[in-house]
């Protein structure tokens, strides 16, 4: 960000940040509090909306819109599907019988690890630095990190820089992501596909091109 943009940020940015962050944790608390699971999913959508606002305040417009599209448009819908598929009174009784402390303990451990990871950054330099940009591949690594990105940041939009970064330096992460999506697709099909009945498969085109006048014929007067 240049100095001009940093100068004209008014005080409303602070109050907007307070508004969105307070709204986010209040909505999250309401997710936990509501007895109706559909209401919980609604409050989850509200949490995602507040998080999208926070991303917009950070200057990440692409990710704010992506949050709306992917998190609310796909993830919250999937949560809603799961809520619809479950038989809630029976699930609640079984949950009370089995006890919630093991699962809660595991999730609390995960939260502790996440907080620890936020406060202590284990690796400053990634071992996966792969400068694949052809015009800078011959340059030494220090000049690559100093000059090319500065030139790119003034000449192109942030989204174009993201494209250059994603398909250039961090291409290994992109291919890992594609493998992850492949696993997700195959897993979904393997888990939810019903056994297809051995019914005859009709070719629709052949069906449509049958001449209807020849279908019915008179056998006897």
């Amino acid at each position: 960000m240049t100095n001009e943009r940093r100068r004209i940020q008014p005080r409303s940015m602070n109050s907007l940040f307070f508004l969105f962050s307070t709204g986010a944790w209040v909505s999250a608390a309401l997710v936990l509090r509501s007895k109706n699971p559909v209401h919980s999913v609604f409050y989850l959508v509200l949490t995602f909306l507040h998080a999208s606002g926070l991303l917009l305040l950070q200057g990440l417009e692409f990710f704010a819109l992506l949050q709306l599209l992917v998190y609310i448009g796909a993830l919250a819908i999937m949560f809603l599907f799961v809520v619809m598929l479950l038989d809630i009174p029976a699930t609640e009784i079984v949950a009370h019988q089995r006890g919630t402390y093991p699962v809660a303990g595991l999730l609390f451990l995960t939260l502790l690890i996440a907080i620890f990871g936020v406060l202590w950054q284990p690796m400053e330099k990634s071992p996966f630095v792969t400068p694949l940009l052809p015009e800078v591949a011959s340059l030494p690594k220090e000049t690559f990190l100093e000059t090319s990105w500065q030139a790119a940041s003034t000449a192109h939009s942030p989204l174009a820089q993201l494209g250059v970064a994603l398909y250039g330096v961090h291409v290994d992460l992109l291919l890992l992501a594609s493998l992850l999506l492949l696993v997700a697709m195959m897993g979904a099909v393997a888990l939810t596909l019903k056994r297809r009945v051995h019914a005859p498969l009709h070719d629709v085109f052949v069906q449509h091109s049958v001449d209807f006048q020849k279908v019915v014929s008179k056998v006897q007067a």
Partner: protein
Amino acid sequence: MIEYIGVFVYFLVATLLGLIMFGLAWKVAPRRFDLEKVTAYECGYDAFGEARSPFDVGFYLVAILFLVFDIEVAYLIPWALGGVLSGWSGLAALLLFLAVLVIGFIYEWGKGALDWN
């Protein structure tokens, strides 16, 4: 990010309008609670069970596949603006990314996951 203040004002006005509509309707409508009005009607008997019908799991598969391909499109959007700048190696990266996902798509198509609709 001050240039998006218009979007925020739009959201505020839309929320305010929605709240005014809900609030006025809630204030004006009569609310006389009666046990018969609130309970489910099943020809005079008490409710036999939950009012849900069995749910076809094919809908869930469609939702998951939509999510996966939506994320694929989200990875393709930065390419649309900055992909040409990343040269031939960037193109190779894109083709590898798409090839892996096309393999998954062929698997689904062959398995018949796209068929029943």
